[in-house]
């Protein structure tokens, strides 16, 4: 049967076929390595062609996933609901207390004339429509592009922390590199003491739920669980965005600096919606 199918259609020897296509590949690699901007229109066309489909299919995938979860989780949800209701009552009470504290703090703040730490940047919300299927990279595609004012190097937030940075923009979609990606390196600092450090993504560490911090100076005043935010040095990231919390601080192998683990503030496992700051630094 199978022999029937391949009869006399391509009588070319596979070896020559392999060589021809291999040479094409090498030429393409050379071109994209030497002149990366030349391949950009091709990639743009591909992204514009695929992203509408991904948007639709992603919705289907999520729906199926939710349906499966619904079946398996009903009992767990009922239990959780009861527990959450209890917790809610407690939190309501606590919230009132905190509100009072907050009012008090506002007055203190105005007294001290503190600068506002988190300046409110203009943001755009976007949905993640596809992830890099090669599991070595941590990049994903969002459903907003240059038509919505997205530009390369804009910061991407999720929840209350930094998720990544826009690396490529197409007309209706954009590629984002997450901070947990192996090739991601950014400058961070301790919120309290303003000691700077380097936060770098690591494929191996993120499996255990953290990424790496290095180059903390020996006399830096960073404690366990201190908040690490983006620093003033970085030329791409806005200052003061929460990255995560530093734990397990120790002296590194060179004995010249300290290193630590950083637990990201963003839950990268269950990322669905992100916010993009539409202002470049």
């Amino acid at each position: 049967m199978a022999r029937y199918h391949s009869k006399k259609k391509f009588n070319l020897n596979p070896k020559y076929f392999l060589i021809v296509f291999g040479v094409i590949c090498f030429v393409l690699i050379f071109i994209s390595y030497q002149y990366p901007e030349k391949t950009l229109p091709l990639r743009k066309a591909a992204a514009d062609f695929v992203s509408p489909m991904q948007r639709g299919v992603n919705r289907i995938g999520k729906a199926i996933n939710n349906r499966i979860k619904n079946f398996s989780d009903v009992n767990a949800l009922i239990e959780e609901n009861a527990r959450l209701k209890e917790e809610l009552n407690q939190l309501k009470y606590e919230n009132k207390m905190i509100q009072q504290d907050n009012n008090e703090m506002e007055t203190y703040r105005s007294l001290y004339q503190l600068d506002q730490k988190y300046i409110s940047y203009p943001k755009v919300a976007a949905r993640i429509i596809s992830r890099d299927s090669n599991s070595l990279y941590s990049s994903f595609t969002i459903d907003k592009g240059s038509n919505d004012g997205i530009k390369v190097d804009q910061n991407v937030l999720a929840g209350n922390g930094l998720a990544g940075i826009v690396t490529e923009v197409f007309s209706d979609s954009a590629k984002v590199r997450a901070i947990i990606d192996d090739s991601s390196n950014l400058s961070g600092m301790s919120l309290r003491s303003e000691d700077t450090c380097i936060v770098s993504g690591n494929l191996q560490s993120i499996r255990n739920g953290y990424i790496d911090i290095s180059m903390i100076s020996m006399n830096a005043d960073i404690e366990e669980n201190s908040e690490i935010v983006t620093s003033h040095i970085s030329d791409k990231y806005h200052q003061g965005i929460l990255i995560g919390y530093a734990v397990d601080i120790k002296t590194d192998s060179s004995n010249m600096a300290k290193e630590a683990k950083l637990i990201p503030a963003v839950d990268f496992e269950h990322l669905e919606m992100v916010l993009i700051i539409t202002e470049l630094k």
Partner: protein
Amino acid sequence: MRIIRFLIIIVELIVCYVVQSSVCGHFTLNHTMPDLMMIIVVTAAYLKGSNAGILYGFCAGMILDLTYGTHLGFGALLYLFAGFLAGLFHKFYRKDDNITPLLLIAVCVFLQLNVYYITEFVIQGKSEYGFYLTNIMLPKIVYTVLIGSVLYKLCQLSIYWSIRLEERNLKHYD
């Protein structure tokens, strides 16, 4: 006729890519996704021979490179070799042999991930091979083979139907 066949390959692979990148992200096994493209390439190569495998591999790799790759052509080269390799086993093809194609898929994914490991991590000097093997390669291979066992049977069936249709048409013209 040949162009139509080529277009069918492209459409097949694009559908595969869209499903892989959008749906598989919701169903991961130890953070890894199955490599549907590799399944299609190896299956096509095993069922139709090296030439088809090379063509499938090249198209699949190009689609991946155009959307997520860093260098255009690198992924294409890897998938192309996988297609060629699997195509060499075309002469041992038997209808009831389900083990060989699954083994081929496993071997091809393993080789491809090793090349990625060498080009991405050995140069950076970051990840240990043991960790990479147990945490990324093995789950990915197991997941891909699991999905592959279903997809392979489907592909086989579709090819049988298309051949039967062709035969009927030929008889008709005779």
